[in-house]
């Protein structure tokens, strides 16, 4: 085999047998990806139910991949490590779809109404659908629209670091160290450390602005790094945030459109919760539907070219054959149909309709979440969940257990779709073969839901859910959504108005404008500010120093800033599982 004389930052990986097949999908990559993905999935499920956060973990998987493939096994390539991170994140990512939904059934005492098998069927259907829908969208979003996918770009930087030269490696590690250190100081509850660097700074208070002006900024280097990679697109999000918080809010206040009991510091929160956020959700939907209509010719061309390449069966065909798309959709549809028919007592006609609408909605939601993450790295999961629950409650005749179960299908699908797209972007940047990535993801993505569901069940038996020990904040939020919808408290008029605006914006000729402005209304200003700052720095650096400076200096630092904080979130999850941290 190869000589093991590779060093970080030097392209000096000498081989004796250069004619050997280029290592990509190997047993080592698959086993390592599954093991590391399962470890992250278990840790994030537990931590997510206690602390309310999860993370993708692609970048950490890439670093671990280097450590094992080259550090221990003394072999490994860039594209092989890409397979490691693809599998690990595929196994891990479905966690968020499960913990956002299934624990709500436990909290409401409805989990016993559903046979465990259906939990697996519904979430597996989501995992398969999320990935198969991405097959035609890959060409459109990555190759034609060339969306940025900041996380995917950051992971590619990590994968390419060994061959990129010592300078890039130094910048990457510098960014990682600074970001990890800042996050540790902010979070670690000993020696009064969080007091030194707070999690956010209230600029409004410092500038003595009125209480209702929301000008707090999260001190998150990860979010700043996301902005640094995104660049121009993020400036639209910043502009939309300014429109939402500093134009609409004062005008609404001046015109007296607020209830009389909403005063002072509560104004900004009220406008956000009841006016701009639901408008933003509507804009996201309208914008993405317009995007879908505009892109339909390209999607059809993409599908045709994939189908033709499959028929020819020769030459350089690196796309997953179209039959996988059809088979995946059929299988997932059947799983949804069986689940709905068996559990819902709705009759075959309504079960068919529910499964059909469910599949169609997952496609729209997957498209939307992939567009959002592609353009900005933000994923509007909670807003989409609200709309999902609304649609599903209607379709299932307000059957809450079935709605939440199908909500898990949607959650797993959209988080899987976004992750797959990020992985495929990484693959594009390192020269991975898309069909290979998609196949390994299809083969392994179902493992995540099993792990997450098992951990949720174990936690229920050990501690219960929805109490002081395991607050499950995301599931509690879903329960509130269900209660609100059942109580008729859904701002449908805002969704429609926002949808019309978003649709019109996306027709402007500026790709994804409706989605970008919708995101800016949907996100809290707390995060838009550091993100926008990162975008501004990117644009200034590009104009003053050129594209090369961005690639050679800004990108590795930004990737490091994102990876450092992500690594610390995993550390916190593991420490929580071990009982060292008690949030």
């Amino acid at each position, binding site marked *: 085999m190869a000589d093991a004389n590779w060093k970080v930052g030097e392209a000096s990986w000498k081989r004796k047998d250069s004619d050997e097949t280029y290592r990509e999908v190997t047993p080592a990559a698959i086993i390592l990806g599954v093991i590391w993905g399962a470890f992250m999935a278990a840790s994030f499920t537990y931590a997510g139910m206690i602390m309310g956060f999860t993370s993708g973990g692609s970048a950490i998987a890439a670093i671990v991949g280097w450590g094992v493939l080259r550090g221990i096994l003394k072999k490994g390539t860039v594209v092989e490590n890409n397979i490691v991170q693809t599998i690990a994140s595929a196994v891990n990512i479905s966690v968020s779809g499960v913990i956002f939904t299934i624990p709500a059934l436990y909290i409401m005492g409805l989990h016993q109404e559903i046979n465990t098998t259906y939990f697996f069927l519904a979430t597996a259907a989501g995992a398969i659908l999320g990935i198969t829908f991405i097959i035609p969208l890959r060409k459109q979003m990555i190759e034609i629209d060339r969306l940025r996918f900041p996380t995917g770009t950051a992971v590619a930087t990590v994968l390419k670091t060994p061959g990129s030269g010592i300078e890039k490696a130094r910048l990457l590690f510098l960014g990682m160290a600074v970001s990890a250190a800042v996050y540790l100081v902010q979070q670690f509850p000993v020696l009064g450390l969080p007091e030194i660097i707070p999690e956010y700074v209230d600029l409004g208070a410092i500038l003595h602005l009125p209480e209702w002006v929301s000008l707090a900024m999260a001190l998150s280097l990860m979010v700043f790094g996301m902005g640094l990679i995104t660049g121009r697109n993020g400036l639209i999000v910043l502009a939309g945030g300014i429109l*939402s918080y500093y134009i609409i809010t004062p005008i609404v206040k001046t015109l007296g*459109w607020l209830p009389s009991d909403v005063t002072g510091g509560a104004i900004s929160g009220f406008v956000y919760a009841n006016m701009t956020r639901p408008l933003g959700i509507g804009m996201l939907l309208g914008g993405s539907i317009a995007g879908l209509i505009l892109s339909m010719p390209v999607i059809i061309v993409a599908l045709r070219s994939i189908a033709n390449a499959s028929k020819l069966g020769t030459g350089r065909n690196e796309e997953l054959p179209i039959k996988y798309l059809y088979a995946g959709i059929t299988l997932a549809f059947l799983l949804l149909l069986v689940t709905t028919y068996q559990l819902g007592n709705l009759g075959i006609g309504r079960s068919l309709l529910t499964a059909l609408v469910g599949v169609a909605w997952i496609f729209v939601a997957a498209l939307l979440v992939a567009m959002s993450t592609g353009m900005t790295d933000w994923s509007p999961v909670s807003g989409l969940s609200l709309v999902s629950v609304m649609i599903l409650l209607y379709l299932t005749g307000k059957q809450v257990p079935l709605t939440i179960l199908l909500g898990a299908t949607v959650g797993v699908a959209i988080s899987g779709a976004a992750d797959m797209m990020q992985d495929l972007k990484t693959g594009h940047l390192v020269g991975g073969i898309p069909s290979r990535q998609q196949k390994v993801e299809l083969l392994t993505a179902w493992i995540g839901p099993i792990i997450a569901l098992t951990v949720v069940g174990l936690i229920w038996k050990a501690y219960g859910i929805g109490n002081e020990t395991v607050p499950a904040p995301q599931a509690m939020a879903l329960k509130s959504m269900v209660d609100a919808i059942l109580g008729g408290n859904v701002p449908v008029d805002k969704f429609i108005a926002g949808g*019309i605006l978003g649709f019109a914006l996306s027709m402007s*000729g500026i790709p994804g404008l409706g989605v970008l402005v919708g995101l800016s209304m949907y996100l809290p200003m707390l995060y838009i500010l550091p993100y926008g700052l990162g975008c501004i720095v990117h644009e200034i650096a590009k104009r003053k120093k050129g594209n090369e400076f961005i690639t050679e200096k800004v990108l590795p630092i930004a990737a490091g800033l994102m990876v450092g904080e992500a690594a610390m979130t995993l550390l916190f999850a593991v420490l929580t599982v071990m009982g060292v941290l008690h949030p």
Partner: protein
Amino acid sequence: MEMKKLVGNVLLTVGLVAGAITAARMPPMWGGLAVSLAVMGAGIVLRRQGAKEELHRAAQSGTGGVRELERLLTDAIGRIEKIMDAPAEKVTAELTKILEELDEFAEKAQPLRIEGLMTYGTIMSVFSKGERALNRAWSAFADGYEEEGRRYLRYGYDDLKETLSAVKALKV
């Protein structure tokens, strides 16, 4: 910026701000929203016309647009030809620069959308295939798999030549 496009952008922004404000009220002011949408519509038509005229002017003057795209592609193809048989270390370093140049091509190709999404999609599809092949060549060379690297260098070269033919065939 060309006047028509500028006016279009202003109308689009004014329509959006007014639309967002009228839609934010509980319940929304539907009449106000309709007027705002009409303003946005006028803005969209003007900015699309302006963008198209801008692209055509750039093409005719030869200062940007398609000519610039041709130049970038021709340059990248020429640089690849020079490293086809060069030592591996040299290829990795040169590929890094070529990939940066291709990134610039992709950015400058964005206005082609206005000529039609199908045209833009066809060009970017083959271009991206070539770009990914060159990315794979870079990785293979960096990993010490020279044979794989040279195979994908050739693939990338062929795809870029195909892209150049498609760009030259554009009637802008």
